[in-house]
């Protein structure tokens, strides 16, 4: 693994840990398709740690009862 990929891998790891940990234990809350964590993984894979991470943060910020919903794939 290249060192440059480290931040990317770390972010994906965090998202995976969320999916397999707390997320499994809580009632489903997803307003969007794909889920925020899946979105984060795809965004980071596609756009890299910085831009992908930013996209994921923006996604989480709109994932509340007054936000949008429905299909919302990674751009």
């Amino acid at each position, binding site marked *: 693994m290249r060192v440059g990929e480290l931040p990317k891998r770390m972010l994906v790891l965090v998202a995976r840990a969320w999916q397999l940990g707390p997320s499994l*234990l*809580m*009632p*489903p*809350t*997803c*307003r*969007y*398709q794909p889920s*925020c964590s899946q979105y984060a993984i795809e965004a980071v894979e596609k756009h890299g740690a910085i831009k992908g991470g930013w996209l994921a943060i923006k996604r*989480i*910020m709109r*994932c*509340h*009862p*007054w*936000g949008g*919903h*429905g*299909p919302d794939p990674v751009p």
Partner: protein
Amino acid sequence: MENQRNIILAVLMTALVLFGWDAAVGYFYPQSKTPTQVVESGGAKNAAGPLKPTREGGLTNAADVQLEQQDLKTALASGGRVPIAADGVSGSINLRGAIVDDLVLNGHRETVNKDSGPVRLYSPAGTPAQQFAQFGWVGQGFATPNATTVWSAPEGAKLTPQSPLTLTWQNGSGQTFAITFTIDEDYLITATQRVMNRGAAPVTVQPFGLINRTDRTASLDTWNVHSGPIGAFDGSVSFGTDYSDVVESGVVNSAERTNWIGFTDVYWMSTLAPVDAAASGTFRSLGNSLFRSDLVYDEAVVQPGQQLALTTKLFAGAKENAVLERYEAEGITNFGLAIDWGWFRWFEKPIFWLLLSLFELVGNFGVAIILLTVIVRGIMFPVAQRQFASMAAMRAIQPKMKALQERYKDDKQTQQQKIMELYKQEKVNPLAGCLPVFLQIPVFFALYKVLILAIEMRHQPFVLWIKDLSAPDPLMILNLFGLLPFDPPSFLGIGILAVLLGITMYLQFKLNPAQVDPAQQQIFMLMPWFMMFVMAPFAAGLLLYWITSNILTIGQQKFLYSRHPQLKAQAEKEAADKQRGAERDKPAKRGA
């Protein structure tokens, strides 16, 4: 098949977490089993046992505790001491060496018991709990005082906030040394070291202050709360050096300018800070579990007839936030940051402030935590309300949903997608999204951190049997609340609070809409009982927060259901359908 795999997976994970958790909690969240009470006669058999530090710090094995009591008696009875009497601390200064080596904290008891003694911070050299502060000089070519020098004090002297104390010593060749101690109402002793040269030739001196302590009394150093060497260098507080690092390298120097330096426990701290002078700080391992932090001033030449005076602030006391912040305001750089808040300080401090304000209002920390919960839930209420409103809207499109589910029942992916599209068309969404959850996690974490970190929460009672909200629930159900003479293993050590947590969480989960997948629903309903074990070893205050939060959520659900009666009817009908469905499935599964 799918369901069975899920259940097996869930059981395995439960087992893993249940047993792995025990080890993890021991590491992350040390129980504050206070070591100080049990003193067996001839307890020497424990002496060889490994030292397991506790959250509060202090000697951990019975033999040491006993030895400490004996040694203290002899050391303090031998005379040649000037008493210290202030609001924050009491003790004495040893005239042999001018060493501050006897200090207890008046405002903090050793254990929850009302009649337990005050916490002892300083203990003379050679005692098992050794810790002391000393001020001195390094000289070249002339006699300077050392640890065995006997200093003179004025007749009947006593160090109090009103009366400073000056100790003097003459070296016989023209130099007079003097140390003037002053003390404030809290935990600060200011020492001014003065050397007067009445000799014929200039002398070169280097004043220093030191703190010497053993790590046998150190509190537990964990991943999120540091215990050990501490200091601020060029304004930045360093939590990174451990006792083991100092042992490894022998001497730890800091290249930067030292703002303050010393040793900290979770609740107690002892540091030296130079006043208006540059000094360098060093940590040193002296072997035999002893450590020293030195604050050394620059070398200076004192001409005949001249004098050199330098002032050092010695903090020796409890890490009370308000006190530390006041000392910071009075000139000790970033002293408030000596409390290891960590990365989330920006979030923890407001929660801490809110809790303290509520505590001042009501006078009981348990009630303050309950009020905090009410405030947090109050802020989240619009979210729940909004969610209920969209659930009501959901009900209107229920028939279309059913049709979609029926049509795509073999293709979960498409089914999910079609349902999402339907939501979009009808502009409804029953789910709150993940942000509300994320917003509550920091509150929980901040409370967790405040409860282990803040001395203001130490030994704070709630009601009945809960005498210390910062410690785990002391009542263990398995040994019939202490009637049976054994300590259950910690993963089974559930108390009443943990059971209440399980029950309230179960009731709350029951009010939630049922899960689509029955296997998932089963796992889901097991969660509360699982969390009961997971949360049991945590601080009682944290459980109190969670229980209150559950009860408030239940109340909120009931209230919102009463506002939307059609939802309640629907929820009941769904539950009944599920029940019937599950019963129908049973024989089928057995056959498969």
